[in-house]
């Protein structure tokens, strides 16, 4: 970062701040990182069992399921679109996985069907948005309600459970315990985050994603296939939501038709905390990683600190607003 000052010939604070500002221009995730550290230290003192392996594992379990959804949302948001239907897609995918498992399908086949269905929903979202130019906020709000309605209608509102005699391999792969309370979902989460970030920062496609969200018209006249980028990102967002649904079902072994309700807002919140711009064109997955860790810590930490569960929502809301204010000011300061 900026420790060079100490080694530099003249030790002058302005130079340090200058270097820090330059660094900050390329690292919008700094705010979320700092927030994560602060909240972590805070809970270490206030929640007695916070600094245990079990507690870390439970944070990761929450963060992983949210984070997989949020990773897709981040990608999509950077390209300038929203997806409010991810909560419903998560529910649909979990339900398909549950029903096919119960019907005796091979688990792998049920999983693939759940993901394909999710991809189809994402594709539909993308086609509607790119063809009609109706804002994705509206389109996916419609999709959110539509698929939730279908889910309720098909199940009659009843939950579906599936209790196999022993843990199927597929379920273990998705969300089994492998070290104490640590679950494989954390590996999916970290793998997806790193992979998507690599794509975003190190490939041509990532460049096209930033350009599409940064200025769609400019990107288009420079030869970027912006509609294709958006379409692909809608599919990514939906598939990851579907994957999170299957992962969650593997943990609970039961799913009710309201599964995933409200998740879209938490996922967007995590992305925004991580420095992704609501208007598109900027952000990355490292920021989202810290965003979901922050949300996960707040959820586990508040419980462990003995606060009633309702405080969670209020606290996350507070963090979102503070994070946006901090991120915005950091950005402005860094560009001066």
């Amino acid at each position: 970062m900026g420790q060079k000052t100490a080694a530099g010939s003249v030790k002058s604070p302005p130079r340090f701040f200058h270097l820090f500002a330059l660094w900050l221009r390329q690292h919008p995730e700094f705010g979320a990182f700092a927030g994560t550290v602060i909240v972590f230290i805070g809970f270490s003192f206030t929640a007695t069992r916070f600094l245990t392996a079990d507690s870390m594992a439970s944070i990761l379990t929450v963060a992983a399921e949210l984070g997989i959804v949020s990773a897709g949302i981040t990608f999509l948001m950077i390209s300038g679109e929203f997806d409010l239907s991810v909560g419903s897609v998560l529910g649909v995918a979990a339900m398909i996985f549950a029903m096919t498992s119960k019907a005796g399908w091979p688990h792998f086949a049920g999983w693939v069907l759940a993901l394909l269905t999710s991809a189809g929903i994402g594709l539909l979202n993308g086609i509607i948005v790119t063809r009609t130019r109706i804002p994705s906020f509206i389109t996916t709000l419609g999709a959110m309600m539509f698929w939730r309605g279908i889910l309720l209608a098909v199940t009659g509102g009843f939950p579906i459970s599936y209790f196999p005699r022993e843990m199927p391999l597929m379920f273990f792969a998705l969300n089994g315990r492998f070290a104490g309370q640590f679950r494989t979902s954390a590996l999916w989460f970290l793998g997806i985050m790193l992979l998507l970030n690599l794509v975003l920062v190190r490939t041509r496609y990532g460049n096209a994603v930033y350009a599409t969200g940064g200025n769609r018209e400019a990107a288009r006249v420079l030869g970027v296939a912006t509609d294709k980028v958006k379409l692909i990102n809608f599919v990514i967002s939906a598939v990851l939501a579907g994957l999170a649904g299957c992962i969650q079902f593997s943990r609970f072994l039961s799913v009710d038709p309201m599964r995933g309700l409200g998740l879209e807002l938490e996922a967007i919140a995590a992305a925004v905390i991580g420095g992704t711009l609501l208007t598109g064109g900027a952000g990355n997955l490292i920021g989202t990683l810290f965003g979901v860790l922050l949300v996960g810590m707040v959820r586990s930490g508040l419980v462990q600190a003995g606060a009633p569960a309702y405080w969670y929502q209020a606290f996350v809301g507070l963090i979102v607003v503070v994070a946006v204010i901090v991120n915005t000011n950091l950005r402005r300061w860094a560009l001066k």
Partner: protein
Amino acid sequence: MSGREPLVRMVNISKSFGTVQALKDVDFEVGYQEVMGLVGDNGAGKSTLIKILTGVFPPDTGEIYFEGRRVDIRSPKEARDLGIETVYQDLALIPLMSISRNFFLGREPVVRMGPLRFLDKRRMDMTVREVLSEIGIKVRSPDEPVAVLSGGERQSVAIGRAVHFGAKLLILDEPTSALSVRETHKVLDYILEAKERGLSIIFITHNIYHVYSVADRFTILEHGHKVAEFRKDEVSAEEIIEIIRSGYREPKE
């Protein structure tokens, strides 16, 4: 131009948007290594004409010839592949992205690792450093966001990008209208330099004085019609302004 096909020839171009006739039977030519000033009042159809040439949208009628060959330009990418580069006033670069990402957008060099291809960051940064120092722009790093550049610097970077990628025709849509006097001169100088390197240039503006100093010929549009075409030695800047000011005259058929 005698006998030889010009670099660009657009014939009988018409285009309407709903009830608005943006262009009506316009013929337009640009020669090799020529700066063509495309002028006319706001709404005359200048941007529409070049958007047709760059594949943003198709004409209703008309034909385009590039280097003597009939071409169908169906997308900005196809125009780019032909060697037609456009610098739009407000769409030249994407402010949130870094200079080097902008410079290579859509044409990024890659290194292969098995089946995977990753951005060749080293080559990108090196090239951008070179181009920036040629233009005379000082930035700490090619990773700086474009937002730190001034308007004139952005135009210059976009022009430098076109030259770097071997464009044959450079189109500038109102490149100077948001710039200070000093920055305008820098950009105008840079346009002449691009011409020296062998490019043809279409310079669109409604500021006649800006274009008059660099252009070889002028085409005047008015309400979607071509009303006049001059070589620089046939007309003064004041006369062009007078033609635009006095309004639409029947185009000679």
